[in-house]
């Protein structure tokens, strides 16, 4: 970016704006702010305290919580909300939450972004599998006869079924909540 800016500056052509100028997408930011704690990136001053202890930044190739917060500030949703989103490299270790001097809670902003991915119906298969198991049984670990036999061996009572009907009522989207930007088929992708 800096090289391109220098080139255009030195060319001295004031008539055409630099091609890499960033226009903030406020609609994306407004939609993110509707998620629980999705508005916190607004406090980010790009100090980078979140990066040093981030396992995915240390061991991965390209995951950087500060850059993700910067993209959120610019509203670059199209770079974050992709089929192969880098957001899924987050280990959810909460080091960034611990380190941030501004209480941005980068991990929570990342999870809010994942909520937007869910609205779009873009989900890794293994994530979807666990969510479906929860929505169908109220548990994320399957209970089967082998599990119940194991429990019996340890003198433990069988695991009772979870009142799934109550869970379903709780996770139905509120009609009152605006879900702007969500595609019409988004909910079908994530539920049932």
């Amino acid at each position, binding site marked *: 970016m800096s090289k391109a800016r220098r080139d255009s500056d030195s060319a001295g052509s004031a008539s055409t704006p630099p091609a890499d100028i960033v226009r903030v997408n406020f609609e994306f930011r407004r939609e993110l702010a509707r998620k629980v704690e999705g508005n916190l990136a607004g406090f980010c001053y790009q100090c980078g305290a979140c990066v040093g202890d981030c396992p995915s930044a240390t061991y991965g190739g390209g995951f950087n919580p500060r850059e993700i917060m910067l993209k959120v500030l610019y509203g670059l949703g199209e770079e974050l909300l992709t089929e192969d989103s880098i957001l899924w490299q987050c280990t959810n270790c909460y*080091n960034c939450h611990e380190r941030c001097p501004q209480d941005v809670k980068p991990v929570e902003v990342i999870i*809010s972004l994942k909520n937007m991915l869910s609205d779009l119906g873009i989900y890794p298969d293994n994530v979807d599998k666990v969510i479906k198991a929860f929505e169908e049984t109220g548990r994320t670990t399957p209970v089967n006869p082998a599990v119940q036999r194991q429990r019996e061996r340890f003198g433990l009572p069988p695991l009772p079924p*979870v009142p799934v009907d109550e869970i379903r009522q*709780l996770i139905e989207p509120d009609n009152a909540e605006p879900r702007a930007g969500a595609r019409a088929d988004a909910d079908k992708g994530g539920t049932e």
Partner: protein
Amino acid sequence: MNRFAFFPGCLIPARHPAMEFAIRHTLPKLGIEIVDLEGASCCPDPIYFKSKDKLSWLSVAARNLTLAEDLGLDIFTNCSGCTATLSETYHLLEDETLRAQVNERLSKIGRTYQATSRVRHIATLVRDVAGYDAVRESVVRPLEGLKVAIHYGCHLLKPSRIMQVDDPNNPTVMENLVTALGATPVRHRNWYLCCGKACQTEQVPDDMMHDLLGTVNEEEADILCMICPTCFGQFDHGQMKVSRKFDEDFHTPPIYYFQLLAFAQGVPYDKLGFERQRFKPECLRRFETAPQPAGDPAHTGAQGKNSA
């Protein structure tokens, strides 16, 4: 007797019942009465379901908390993930707007969240309610000479302002719990690393586990002790996977703290389900043959024939 509502979650009761057995065996010996919660669901998990919809996640978590509120008891968890969800829910629902939103959903099933039940991780329950001395006094097989590497995991400690468990930069609770068993805790250089289970790529957790297990090997620890069932999986089958991938000999048996406590309290090795682990803590067997303190009712020398 101190009474607490037990929130067992999913992973321990449905995949690691030996851990649940150990909890139910050990806590009463420390003066803690376990009260079962009827109708509890998944916490829900702070990785997968939370990433779908935080408000739904909060609503289900709040429902679980209301089950303990009905009993007028504080709630304790045996899994760091469940603790993360329930503690964060308790924290976030101090916000009146959010609490109103959640209670509107709960009203559909005739419930109201009132924030009257505190959330405690089982490690802090033992530390703060029973005390380390009670642990020490409950031990009939002091694990003298056992070198125990400790893996804290992430969600027990962080975010510290919400979890309120220990200093995330220099925690002591696990070291003290291990010391109370007569064993020697070992802090390896990469003690603070994450287990990587929640990361949806393979390369990041594999490389991280490789570094972590390397420093555990340097310390020549007998076992690797942890407090989270998700971490346990990473250090059991995950350790085998990383060993193969890097063609290196990683071999430290992982063990959930309360199974170690149960063993130290006299439960026979063969009753603790270790045969299901990839890496078996056979090193513990030497304490079974050690002389027992005289007159101890927990003496169990005649047992242990159903070995796997």
